[in-house]
């Protein structure tokens, strides 16, 4: 019995990776998801046993998560995974989504600002994709309101992937493997691969990138010893009204998804970025950016929208240097009222950094395919 199971295991091992003869789509849901009778994947997490005010998914420890996207089929999610890692999505076949959202780099790229096609400076840092299923706004300046609406941004930006809708669809439709996989993932559709299908598959994959099993989460669910004394101390500074971190980096996602003007500096030589002022056409939001999640934050240095801080302590210390400490001379910003002069001790700053380390969880790290249907070389 056991022997035969081991054999089953060995055979099944091939199922998660394409066999050498071809590409197949995984019929099972990714970790964390239950396949319903309708054949779609729904997220399951202990947070579903909690409530939140107005259903907004913001609050303290045992607070429900915000509403999220799920309900994609396993095939759509797996097709999205191939697309995500396939450089065929870029204009010159050198960059995939994973180039800037690398699972081994916190689904970011470890750079101050991303590097796009032909080595172009993309202007802003690549945000992590962990837990994007719960977000309602995308990009640092919140200019997209869904994952699908976001997808075209980097794909078609001449500073990022440099592709065009026409080239994207012609390369996918010109690929026999992709045509078959799209038919599998979208069985109701007939005809050619469409941009909507591409965006849907990418969104499906991105919603599977869930990180909710950190030591902090274990603490929340009732295991007090999950956090060290230093981390608890840090948690209490983090949520105290002196530091006020949790006022915007609000649990359980550690973002309240609002636009905040905090007056972070640009790296030397980098022009001032007006952020959401441009997208929301609101001068009072000059220099405003979407509050980023802090989950897996230790994995995504350097920090800020343009990478002004090389390490986490520097980023935390910025807030302790006082309100407006980096606002360019002669510029008036409507700084967020929570940007204050907390005057934390050096030890308290250290403890916050300790606590942030407890927000790391990569157990549901997506698997990089060994090969992609385009046959192009995978980005390193």
């Amino acid at each position, binding site marked *: 019995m056991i022997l035969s*199971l081991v054999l*089953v*295991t*060995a055979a*099944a*091992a091939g199922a*998660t990776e394409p066999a050498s003869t071809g590409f197949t789509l995984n019929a*099972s849901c990714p*970790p*964390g*998801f239950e*396949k319903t009778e309708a054949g779609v994947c729904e997220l*399951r*997490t*202990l947070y*579903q*046993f909690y*409530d*939140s*005010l*107005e259903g*907004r998914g*913001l*609050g*303290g*420890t*045992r*607070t429900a998560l915000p509403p999220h996207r799920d309900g994609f089929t396993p095939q759509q999610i797996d097709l999205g995974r191939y697309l995500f890692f396939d450089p065929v999505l870029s204009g010159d076949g050198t960059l995939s989504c994973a180039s800037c959202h690398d699972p081994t780099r916190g689904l970011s790229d470890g750079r101050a600002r991303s590097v796009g096609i032909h080595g172009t400076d993309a202007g802003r840092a690549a945000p992590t994709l962990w837990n994007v299923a719960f977000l309602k706004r995308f990009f640092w300046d919140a200019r997209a309101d869904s994952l699908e609406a976001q997808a075209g941004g980097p794909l078609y930006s001449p500073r990022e992937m440099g592709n065009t809708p026409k080239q994207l669809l012609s390369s996918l439709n010109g690929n026999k493997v992709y045509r078959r996989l799209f038919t599998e993932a979208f069985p109701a559709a007939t005809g050619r691969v469409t941009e909507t299908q591409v965006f849907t598959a990418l969104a499906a994959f991105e919603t599977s990138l869930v990180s*909710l*099993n950190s030591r902090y989460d*274990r603490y*929340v*669910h*009732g*295991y*007090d*010893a*999950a956090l060290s004394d230093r981390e*608890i101390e840090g948690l*209490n*500074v983090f*949520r*105290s*009204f*002196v*530091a006020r971190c*949790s006022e915007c980096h*609000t*649990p359980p996602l550690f973002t*309240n998804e*609002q636009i905040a*003007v905090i007056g972070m500096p640009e790296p030397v030589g980098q022009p001032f970025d007006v952020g959401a002022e441009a997208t929301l056409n*609101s001068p*009072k*939001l000059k220099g405003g950016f979407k509050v980023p999640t802090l989950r897996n934050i230790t994995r995504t240095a350097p920090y800020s929208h343009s990478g002004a801080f090389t390490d986490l302590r520097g980023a935390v210390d910025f807030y302790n240097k006082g309100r407006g400490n980096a606002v360019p001379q002669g510029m008036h910003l*409507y700084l*967020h*009222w929570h940007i*204050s002069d907390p005057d934390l001790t050096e030890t308290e700053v250290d403890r916050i950094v300790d606590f942030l380390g407890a927000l790391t969880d990569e*157990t549901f790290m997506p698997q990089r395919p060994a090969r992609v249907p385009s046959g192009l070389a995978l980005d390193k």
Partner: protein
Amino acid sequence: MKKKIFLGLLGVTLVFVAGAFYGRISKQDVVISSSTAGASYSGGYQGADKSAGLIRSVAGPAPTNIVVVKDGESILAAVKAAPKGTIIRVMPGTYHETVYIDKDDIRIIGVIEHGRRPVLDGEKKLNDAILYSGNNFVAENLEIRNYKGNGIMGQAGNNFEIRNNVIVDSGVYGIFPQLGQNGIVEHNVVSKIADAAIYIGMSDNILVAHNDVFDSVAGIEIENSRHAIVEHNYVHNNSGGLLAFVTPGLPIKDTVDVIFRNNFVVGNNHENFGAPGSTVAGIPAGTGILVMAADDVVIEGNVISDNKVSGIIITDHAHASNISADPESDPNSDRVKILDNVMLNNGYDTITEAKALLLSEGKVGAKNLDIARVGPSPGSCIINRHQYTAVGVDDFAECEFTNTATTVNYLLPPVPPREIKPGERGKVVFLGICSGCHIYNGRMIGPPVQAIQALYLDNPQGLADYIAKPVKKREDYPEMPPQDYLDPETRLAVAQYMLQVTN
């Protein structure tokens, strides 16, 4: 930074308001209503069970487990050791600590002996005295002094009761429940607070009653919250007394359905010592009641006296020059309802811009100002308007009601905790945690569920014990990390789930 909010903008307003009001100063027929007769307010929160009558408690039945903390011991140590469902009695003495409560049904009850309370003293070194995120939290009979952050701060705890506490000079807020539902803040004495003495932030179904708040920048602030009644409070010598605000940039976007009634709002003329950049730093010192962008605020039965700028100010975001913008928030104070209030000697030393507004409405020589409204306030109403010296309320309608007598409160009966069946919990724990390493019939980091089923068949307890303390069993797999952070019932539930799944 400390420039008053309304300076400047009232000036700006004047330019167009002056034209609008000139010429219709004179005749309005006097309509006299009796607030002891007439219809009662029928708007407001309707979710409460009216048959429940007056709700005095929202935290549920008192726990029977009691521990006592004496002077020289640690309240926090008692909280950490306590199972959920514990009353922690704190004896008089001095306690230098931050007490955090991340579990449900904890009550910290001070014992007052001959007037001596347990004192939490932050010595201006500690941040917050009490931080709670658990539900059904109660804090009573404490004295809190010299903290830098808050006296008592809640983060998402529901069904809270904060009463009979004395809080002095304890940082930014005295009492600050945030993102919670269903709470009572009553009989507290709060003073010398650098922002609001009592601050209800992003919370629903709230009663703030019988508190004495003074010597603070703001007395009682209802911000981005819904269904709040603020009544029978004594609010004096703050820079601003009662506030109903929408602050931009918060994830909850509105303040709706607030009743300010039967409060004493007296002499709120304290110099504004709000921190630069804080919203309240813009309040003109001398403001009794301030409504900014909040909707459906009823002001009734208050004694509002000796506030030097104005008894009531109603404004919007556009007129508050230190306020940011939020495209998702309605910037106006809609449907303000001003019923009978006793207004005495307000606005006797008002700001220049308010004087200009008075002039613009032809109220030449007015020595007082009871109500000032700038910015749009659609759907608002007032009764017995002739008794007040007011600017900007001429276009308010006559209210169709004269009192709020039928609105008892907006509290909810205590909600029993949700029951989670073990099977459901087992499934969610497996999918939410274990599935990162185990799938039904394939190789991941750990062996497939099928193989585990073959080993443990009818022995879920054996599996539950194994996952708490795993040992290396398979050469070709890494050793499993212990899952001892799951409690024994959860481990058994997940083992039972794993042993019966079929795909």
